[in-house]
């Protein structure tokens, strides 16, 4: 038992070292690296809002379209943004993986922590900014619900990311396939509109299998007091997340010998 705790201590030390390393290396390249990392989601939101205000569309829920968009984009970035970026970790850490006792699992956990920290920081800045400029009245439905949704989207992103990075080791062309597959997710996850107002029931029955749609719905459900989502199914999301995590960890176990050479 003593040896077990010692091993956990060593793991934690290595992950801490990698966490700082990845914070410094990921965005330390240029002087405004951290700034752009934090501001990037804000840029997305501003661009989409201007586009839709030119088109003359009102917000589907609440009064401000910006807040509606922010509640969709934050969980999307936490999940798909993380999964996309995790594709590169074995490449960017190749020299460390092949010259120190660091394992791909350590690298992935450290990357998860550092990336989540930056994304949450940017989410906080967006929400505080929206509140400051009067787009948001500082009211939320349930804080616990929001935190759980954030946790769910991070866990889902980590699971998909682990699967992706291991698949990319087996077949490098998977990277291109994932890019094409993940493209319609932005529209299908109901970020720029509420899905049940837009699509007929037949289409909705297919869209329901997208776990990200459930997460966006849950986020808005917990954020707006006046709106209740109809699609959110907690057991489906939970099962999807658990199976994605298990599959990702299994794939990593299979491919880790190849990565470390």
């Amino acid at each position: 038992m003593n040896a077990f705790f010692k091993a956990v201590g060593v793991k934690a030390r290595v992950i801490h070292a990698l966490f700082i390393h990845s914070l410094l290396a990921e965005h330390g390249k240029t002087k405004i690296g951290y700034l752009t990392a934090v501001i990037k989601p804000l840029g997305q939101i501003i661009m989409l809002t201007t586009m839709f205000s030119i088109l003359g569309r009102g917000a589907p829920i609440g009064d401000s379209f910006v807040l509606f968009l922010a509640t969709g984009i934050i969980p999307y970035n936490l999940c798909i943004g993380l999964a996309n970026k995790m594709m590169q970790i074995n490449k960017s850490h190749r020299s460390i993986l092949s010259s120190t006792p660091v394992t791909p699992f350590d690298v992935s956990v450290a990357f998860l922590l550092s990336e989540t920290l930056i994304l949450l920081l940017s989410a906080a800045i967006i929400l505080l900014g929206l509140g400051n400029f009067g787009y948001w009245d500082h009211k939320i439905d349930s804080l616990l619900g929001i935190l759980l949704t954030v946790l769910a989207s991070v866990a889902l992103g980590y699971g998909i990311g682990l699967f992706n990075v291991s698949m990319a080791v087996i077949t490098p062309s998977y990277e291109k396939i994932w890019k094409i597959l993940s493209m319609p997710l932005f529209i299908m996850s109901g970020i720029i509109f509420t899905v049940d107002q837009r699509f007929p029931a037949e289409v909705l029955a297919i869209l329901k299998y997208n776990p990200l749609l459930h997460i966006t719905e849950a986020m808005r459900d917990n954020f707006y007091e006046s709106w209740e989502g109809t699609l959110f199914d907690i057991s489906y999301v939970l099962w999807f997340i658990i199976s994605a995590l298990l599959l990702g960890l299994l794939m990593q176990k299979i491919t880790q010998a190849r990565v470390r050479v």
Partner: protein
Amino acid sequence: MRFELINVSKIHNRKQQTYNLRDANIRIEEQNGVAILPAHERSANALLHLISGIELPTKGKILRSGVFTGPIGDPSYFHRDLSGEENIRFICKIYGQNANEIIKEVNEFASLGKDLKKKAKSYAPPLRRKIAIATSLLMKSDIYLLKGPLNHPQPNFNAKIQARLAELAKQATFIVTAGDHNFLCKYANSSVFIDAQGYLTYFSDVQSGIDAQKAPTKDI
């Protein structure tokens, strides 16, 4: 310190079924340096990687307790966008060393001055190697992995390296691999010969290992 390989195999090429190590059993004792004399260079590399934990064995078990740092003077963990100091801090943390102390000592040992604050991409290769050698020589480890005589183009620094190596040889265990037989004899009291199939033979002195390496092998 404890280090033991039990029936360890490390495969080199799965399709051709070639092995770097095959059913290796070896126990490394304290204060008993081992020279590795391989038929193929890759076998020696694989054994060094297994000892420092960089790679895991294909089959078999490794029992270990203690600190085992990587090969001395390997600068490949350097990240180009991090400063030299940050790189040293990172590797110290990975191996559980006291980073502040080692940075101070490296600065003294290699007389670097302001160079440690610069980003690693601005380093010339000799400087990078200098920092890497100084770091790994100053880290406390139970087994030091020595690949070749660690020559450095600067004569002053080279003398310092050899002095530090001689000092370490009194208290630590060395695993040495080099082409120079005199160098091997200096740091090792026993030897291990790995033949072309990956089978490992242990000798209690260096000379018989060298003889085994020189002996003509049967082609299969």
